[in-house]
């Protein structure tokens, strides 16, 4: 909403500066987001009188004009076709003027004459949209040659750009704004009563009005102005509309627009002669009914859309846009003016459905004043008659089928004080309320009964009046206190704290946290071989983000691919986020996962290490799950992963779980991405991916409980190595377990310290070397005992794995 400072001053008599007015409006919740001064910088553009004009020989389009600019006669060459006769006045930019578009006026030789200045049009001066030629000053504007045009035409103004909240439809008109301004500056505001029109005619509307849906159209007024002559509006009005962002059209439409900006209440002017069968009916459309709106678009309507119809069919979509068929045209003589109150919800639904947002619908959907209908109608018809001639026909129509009464609210000042934290004197509260046009009845020392007029639909309960007190007394008055927050028995759920711990440990382990959009595309999910999306957006911004993710892989893979393409060498990203699955209930299931992706070479001391592989992923999981769950993860080959996690390489993946007191808690899975999946996800390198369930991690941590301390060993340990060559098929973990089992209770730890494949061993074989740590918790070990245990282990290797022990 644009608002004119001059207009507000005219309405209130306030003398404060534009800056002061803007600050007060903002402080009161009608935020002035920007303001712009008008009529500045045009000081050397003045009124000048035409003294003579002659055609420039051989240049048909150019005139040689001599103007008197108050100081002397000046020669100007002008290309406009409408240079007026001597004696008339024009707008003259002297040499040295700078026009708003940045053009500087200099001396120029044209057609053999030295042209010293420029005669300007509205557009060149940005004071209007008239581009048909130069601006000829109307006779009724009194201004001597030499008067700066800013003074002569009243151009100086400040335009406020207001960011209004949708609860304040009254602020969409200058009268509503003026009410606030007046209270801020302690002025008494009386809205202007429409003066009697210059000519009042007798007779009837000549059209019958029927409101068939009073719920949607509680009030409908109509008036008639007979015998208008269409033409341009006076400059001051055109200029005001121009400054406030509306285009001047002709006097009738300009009048309705002016009233729109004045009262914030849209009206609609029809050509009365085009109303077929002399009848207006306000009714709902039928499903599929069609009409063409003013913008020449054929609209298909539904039974939820309110229409203004004549005896034959629709002429306007109520409160949204008129129809092409009833538009005012040059031939119009009698203007039928509609001023109504339409139910806001109805207008909003229709506007949304048709994708139409107009000055009218913007106001109707926020709620205009139903009880302002008679006043606004009278003002509009009077203004049309004033501008376009014609007579206002006395007997208008005011169908008030469903009167809307102003709310009456009991107000307790004590409660207001308690809520705001500062005190307000009763007289001050009354001043604010009455200043805003509310009527106040005292019901006690500090209690009132307040009747709030219907132009403030945002006020319906006591607390709304409290806000009015705050608006005008001001936020700076509010003291600052720190409340004593009473502890709640529920506290913060442990899961919430666990969330932070999870992210922190993942970061400490060496992963970078990513945050990806939760919406993805179906093809992305398909590329990741993730479950098909079951939570679908009804109105996505684009197909790329049209379904809720079922896996964190697409987001992380996209981030990894992007990074690698940008020559980031190494990707180690993790994300904690939700995946979504539809359920039978009202809401989808949201599962929180911790996922990570590794791509590129692993960190080496100098230079790069080899590409990340499965064991890097395993290492990260050990580094995360260990401290997070206080439990070591176990990794197993799980054939079900072919089905459950088809995005993994079938030979390089594992299920991840923890075993706690015999309870097996599955955490998720880890693996190298299937080469086809990596390709489909645009990763041109192998990548390691893991996805763990955060609730499962939490459950594991809960199951572990408090870890229990045990005494540190007092007796020394003995290390013995065992190296062997055996078939590839035996996993190191199984071999280690066999050593542990065979060697018996003295074994404290079995650790793989060498793995070799290559020339020194036969094909299909590998060499493993383990260091076995023996310890007796109760005594110092003897070599003999250790030798015996170690010999059992060696024997078991030969027996179970056909290993050659070296």
């Amino acid at each position, binding site marked *: 909403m644009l608002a004119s400072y001059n207009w507000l001053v005219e309405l209130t008599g306030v003398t404060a500066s534009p800056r002061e007015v803007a600050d007060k409006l903002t402080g009161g919740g009608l*935020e002035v987001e920007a303001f712009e001064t008008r009529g500045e910088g045009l000081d050397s553009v003045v009124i000048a009188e035409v003294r003579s004009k002659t055609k420039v020989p051989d240049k048909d389009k150019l005139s040689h004009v001599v103007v008197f600019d108050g100081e002397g006669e000046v020669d100007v060459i002008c290309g406009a076709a409408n240079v007026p006769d001597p004696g008339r006045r024009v707008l003259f930019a002297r040499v040295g003027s700078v026009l708003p578009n940045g053009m500087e006026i200099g001396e120029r030789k044209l057609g053999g004459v030295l042209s010293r200045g420029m005669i300007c049009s509205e557009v060149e001066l940005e004071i209007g949209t008239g581009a048909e030629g130069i601006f000829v000053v109307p006779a009724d504007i009194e201004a001597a040659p030499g008067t700066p045009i800013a003074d002569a035409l009243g151009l100086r103004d400040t335009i406020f750009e207001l960011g209004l909240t949708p609860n304040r439809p009254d602020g969409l008109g200058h009268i509503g704004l003026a009410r606030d301004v007046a209270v801020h500056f302690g002025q008494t505001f009386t809205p202007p009563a429409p003066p009697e029109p210059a000519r009042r005619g007798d007779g009837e509307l000549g059209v019958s009005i029927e409101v068939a849906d009073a719920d949607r159209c509680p009030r409908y007024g109509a008036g008639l102005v007979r015998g208008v002559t269409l033409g341009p509006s006076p400059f001051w009005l055109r200029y005001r509309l121009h400054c406030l962002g509306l285009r001047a059209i002709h006097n009738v439409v300009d009048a309705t627009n002016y009233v729109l900006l004045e009262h914030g209440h849209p009206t609609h002017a029809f050509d009365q002669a085009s109303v077929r069968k002399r009848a207006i009916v306000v009714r709902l459309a039928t499903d599929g009914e069609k009409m063409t709106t003013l913008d020449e678009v054929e609209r298909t309507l539904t039974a939820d859309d309110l229409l203004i119809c004549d005896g034959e069919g629709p002429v306007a979509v109520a409160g949204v846009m008129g129809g092409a068929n009833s538009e005012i045209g040059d031939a119009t003589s009698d203007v039928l003016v509609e001023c109504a109150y339409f139910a806001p919800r109805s207008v909003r639904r229709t506007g949304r459905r048709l994708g139409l947002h107009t000055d009218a619908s913007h106001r109707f959907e926020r709620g205009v004043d139903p009880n302002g209908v008679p006043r606004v109608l009278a003002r509009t018809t009077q203004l049309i008659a004033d501008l376009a001639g014609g007579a206002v026909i006395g007997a208008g129509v005011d169908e008030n089928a469903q009167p809307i009464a102003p709310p009456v609210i009991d107000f307790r000042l004590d409660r207001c004080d308690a809520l705001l934290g500062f005190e307000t004197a009763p007289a001050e509260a009354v001043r604010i309320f009455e200043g805003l046009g509310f009527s106040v009845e005292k019901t006690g020392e500090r209690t009132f009964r307040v009747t709030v007029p219907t132009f403030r639909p945002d006020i319906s309960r006591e607390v709304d009046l*409290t806000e009015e007190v705050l608006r005008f007394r001001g936020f700076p008055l509010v003291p600052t206190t720190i409340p004593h*927050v*009473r502890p709640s028995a529920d506290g913060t759920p442990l899961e919430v704290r666990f*969330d932070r711990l999870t992210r922190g440990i993942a970061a400490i382990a060496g992963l970078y946290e*990513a945050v990806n959009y939760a919406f993805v595309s179906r093809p992305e999910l398909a590329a990741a071989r993730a479950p098909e999306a079951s939570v*679908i957006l009804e109105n996505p911004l684009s197909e790329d983000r049209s379904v809720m993710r079922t896996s964190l892989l697409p987001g992380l893979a996209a*981030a990894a691919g*992007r990074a690698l393409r940008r020559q980031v060498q190494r990707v180690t990203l993790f994300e904690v986020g939700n995946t979504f699955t539809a359920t039978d209930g009202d809401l989808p299931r949201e599962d929180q996962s911790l996922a990570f992706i590794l791509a590129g070479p692993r960190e080496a001391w100098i230079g790069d290490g080899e590409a990340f592989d499965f064991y890097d992923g395993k290492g990260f999981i050990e580094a995360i799950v260990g401290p997070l769950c206080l439990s070591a993860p176990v990794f197993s080959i799980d054939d079900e992963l072919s089905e459950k996690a088809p995005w993994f390489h079938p030979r390089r993946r594992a299920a991840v779980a923890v075993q706690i007191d015999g309870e097996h808690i599955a955490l998720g899975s880890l693996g190298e991405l299937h080469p086809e999946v990596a390709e489909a996800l645009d990763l041109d390198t192998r990548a390691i991916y893991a996805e763990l369930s955060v609730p499962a991690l939490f459950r594991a941590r809960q199951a572990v409980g408090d870890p229990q301390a045990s005494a540190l060993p007092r007796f020394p340990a003995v290390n013995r190595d065992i190296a062997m060559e055996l078939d590839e098929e035996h996993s190191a973990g199984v071999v280690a377990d066999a050593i542990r089992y065979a060697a018996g209770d003295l074994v404290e730890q079995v650790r793989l310290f060498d793995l070799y494949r290559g020339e020194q061993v036969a094909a299909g074989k590998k060499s493993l070397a383990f260091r076995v740590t023996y310890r007796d918790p109760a005594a110092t070990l003897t070599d003999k005992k250790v030798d015996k245990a170690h010999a059992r282990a060696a024997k078991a290797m030969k027996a179970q794995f056909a290993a050659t022990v070296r």
Partner: protein
Amino acid sequence: MTDTDAVTRFEAGLADVREAFGSAFGEAADEQSLRAANAKLTGPEGTLTKLMKLMREVPGDRRREFGQAANALKEEVAAAFDGALVALAQAEREAELAAPHIDVSLPGRRPKPGRLHPITRVTIELVDIFTALGFDVAHGPEIDLYEYNFDKLGFPPDHPATDMQDSFFVKSDGARSMLRTHTSTIQVREMLKRKPPLAIVAPGAVYRRDDDITHSPMFFQIEGLLVDEKVSFADLKGVLTRFAQRLFGPDVGVRGRPSYFPFVEPGAEIDISCVFCKPWEGDAARTAACRVCKGTGWLEILGCGMVHPVVFESVGYDPEKYTGFAFGLGIDRIAMLKYGISDIRMLYENDARFLEQIG
């Protein structure tokens, strides 16, 4: 083989060893070759070991004499070996201490930690500020009922107030559901679940249909709610002032102006002093030129207000008995201000080089 042979060979052997071991040990340049030299003498196949085995063939009357001689030699060899070992270690240490300096400019080896996302960092900071004041932390679902996102918060049906939060809806045959447009849904859920007094902050992802340099269709908010008897607007102002000063420093000022959010009344928007041009330092020219606050010296950072009675009614709290305040602020916005991030999309590209700057 005769006894005499054995005696001769034994004597010759002893003489050879006696002659050779000193130089063999002396010539060894490192521990490995020293040990090898020692093994040649005293190892299982060593000369001295073999000589000892010859003892059985020596005639009985000479055995004692020869035994003593051999053992004496063995001890001599062992002592020489130990001496040589010590000498070698000593030489090695001296060499190391005299060697050229290592190249200290080579990179350090370290466990390389990762980074938290700026959103997480800010969330942690914000949550800690409020938990220190006694607030609990709550979470809620990202997809929620229309009823919780709008109706229960007092949004009138078909009201343009919902335009302020252009929503993503989820296709559903059941109740109308949507991606939450604000974390205020958690207010509703917590109030339905708990009885006052109640003090929570609730961070999380929210979604709106906007996408440009300052708007991301997914972003993060943190919601605050305090409900108790006699909570006032002054308490709200106090808590927010404390919050702003904790987050941005003690000089930061707070101002507000009434605004409209359907679930609060009175509602307000809060500005803090611009943290870029720092107007409290009194450099007016710097503020005038500041592009972040556009020369105003103020930054809008959050919306807040006193909980609307209609919300209390919708969750079954008595609005005559309880009052409360609520606020909501954009975590992305705070992160952008704190870390000087000019384009919100950087937050969602997850480029390690960016994460490294901030995390």
